[in-house]
């Protein structure tokens, strides 16, 4: 390569995951060297793809696995030292390092791990981009900052103002919610306004609640179906949102549970109550764990190439039925339950 000629290396092709790693341990010097070269190249590809996808989002930049072995997260936790800069702060814990006495950092590390594990164990999805992207969690963002968000690159968590919200890392569903905004960015990249924005929000709640249920060992009957119950301050007790009973999570909650209450021009967190409740109806109709069938149907819909960035509730609903038919069949109880769930929230199919 050094003399400018292109070098052909048969190992730098698409190989099954794990094969390159095995070849890299070969007794044959040439094979080993070639495999290590290919692994180095793969690493550069992954970084370039992650950077490109972070800039633009959506499936056009969806990564293609070359030789990634998934199943273990790469987490880095930063202390933002109460600044509001979205530049990554001081590293306080990298993957595999022991916990510190910073509760927020520990919660962020553990919550990101539980969310990674949910996606990997349920869908074999390797991180936000499906390609092992490092999970950057930034704690102590701002001064008493009552919010948490995904900025397209990293997750930021405020300590809360003590009235509206408390320490936002305390909610594992909140961490799952924010990480899922990243997953959505790499999949349908739903535009954050109108019905597509409400779907974007709802999808984060749908997977956030599953992360919480899985971490707590809950099934659909033992879950409280509340979002943010562990981060609300006295003003918003007992939770931010209820997927079971939208509009009644706290005294100020105005989420509609069906299309009769749809708010034209409403906040994306308001109308998200409608698809949230559809998922609740689906999961509780099917029973068991929410990630047995309901979660996979929603995930397949999110990944469906026909789901456009400006999708409406109806478009998402129709695709969820088609995905259920593909996996379970048109006459299955699962597909019937998907239809019933959208009927319950008055989204016509």
């Amino acid at each position: 390569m050094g003399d400018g000629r292109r070098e052909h290396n048969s190992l730098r092709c698409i190989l099954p995951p794990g094969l390159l790693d095995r070849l890299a341990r070969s007794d044959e010097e040439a094979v080993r060297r070639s495999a290590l070269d290919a692994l180095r190249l793969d690493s550069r590809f992954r970084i370039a793809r992650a950077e490109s996808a972070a800039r633009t989002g959506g499936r056009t930049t969806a990564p293609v696995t070359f030789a990634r072995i998934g199943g273990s997260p790469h987490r880095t936790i930063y202390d933002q030292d109460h600044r509001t800069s979205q530049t990554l702060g001081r590293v306080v814990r990298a993957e595999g390092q022991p916990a510190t006495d910073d509760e927020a950092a520990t919660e962020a590390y553990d919550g990101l791990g539980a969310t990674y594990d949910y996606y990997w164990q349920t869908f074999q999805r390797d991180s936000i981009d499906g390609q092992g992207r490092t999970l950057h969690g930034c704690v102590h963002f701002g001064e008493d900052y009552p919010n948490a968000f995904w900025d397209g690159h990293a997750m930021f968590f405020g300590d809360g103002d003590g009235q509206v919200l408390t320490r936002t890392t305390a909610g594992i569903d909140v961490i799952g919610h924010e990480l899922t905004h990243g997953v959505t960015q790499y999949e349908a990249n739903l535009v954050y306004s109108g019905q597509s924005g409400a779907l974007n929000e709802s999808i984060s709640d749908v997977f956030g609640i599953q992360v919480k249920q899985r971490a707590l060992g809950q099934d659909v009957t033992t879950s409280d179906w509340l979002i943010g119950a562990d981060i609300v301050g006295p003003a918003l007790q007992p939770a931010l949102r209820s997927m079971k009973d939208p509009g009644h999570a706290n005294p100020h909650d105005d989420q509609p549970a069906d299309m009769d209450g749809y708010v034209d021009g409403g906040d994306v967190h308001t109308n998200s109550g409608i698809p949230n409740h559809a998922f609740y109806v689906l999961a509780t109709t099917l029973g068991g764990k929410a990630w047995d069938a309901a979660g996979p149907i929603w995930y397949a819909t999110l990944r469906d190439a026909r789901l456009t960035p400006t999708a409406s509730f109806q478009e998402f609903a129709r695709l969820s039925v088609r995905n259920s038919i593909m996996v379970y069949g048109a006459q299955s109880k699962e597909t019937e339950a998907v239809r019933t769930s959208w009927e319950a929230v008055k989204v016509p199919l």
Partner: protein
Amino acid sequence: MRIRVRRVGGIAGNIALAAELETADLPADDAARLEQALGGLPWGAPAAEPPHPDAFRYEVDLPDEPDRGTAVLGEAEMERGMALLRTQLKREGVIEPGRRPG
């Protein structure tokens, strides 16, 4: 000058926090800085796309000058002169009653 600020969005996006501030009650330097900042706001302009999911959005209006309309700002625009409004929200903010469905 009476100023009303409302914070919406964030992960608790369907909850709005609102506060009012009277510049006459502020130290002269603070009042001047705030009034200067208000002069440069995009009054009546449509809200920009949020920079990312769960971002806060601030809606500023002057109750005694309703013709100006509302200025919708992102988090980054609430720095410097406008930071006083954020402080006021933190100190005096009241959660608005939600429009309950049904």
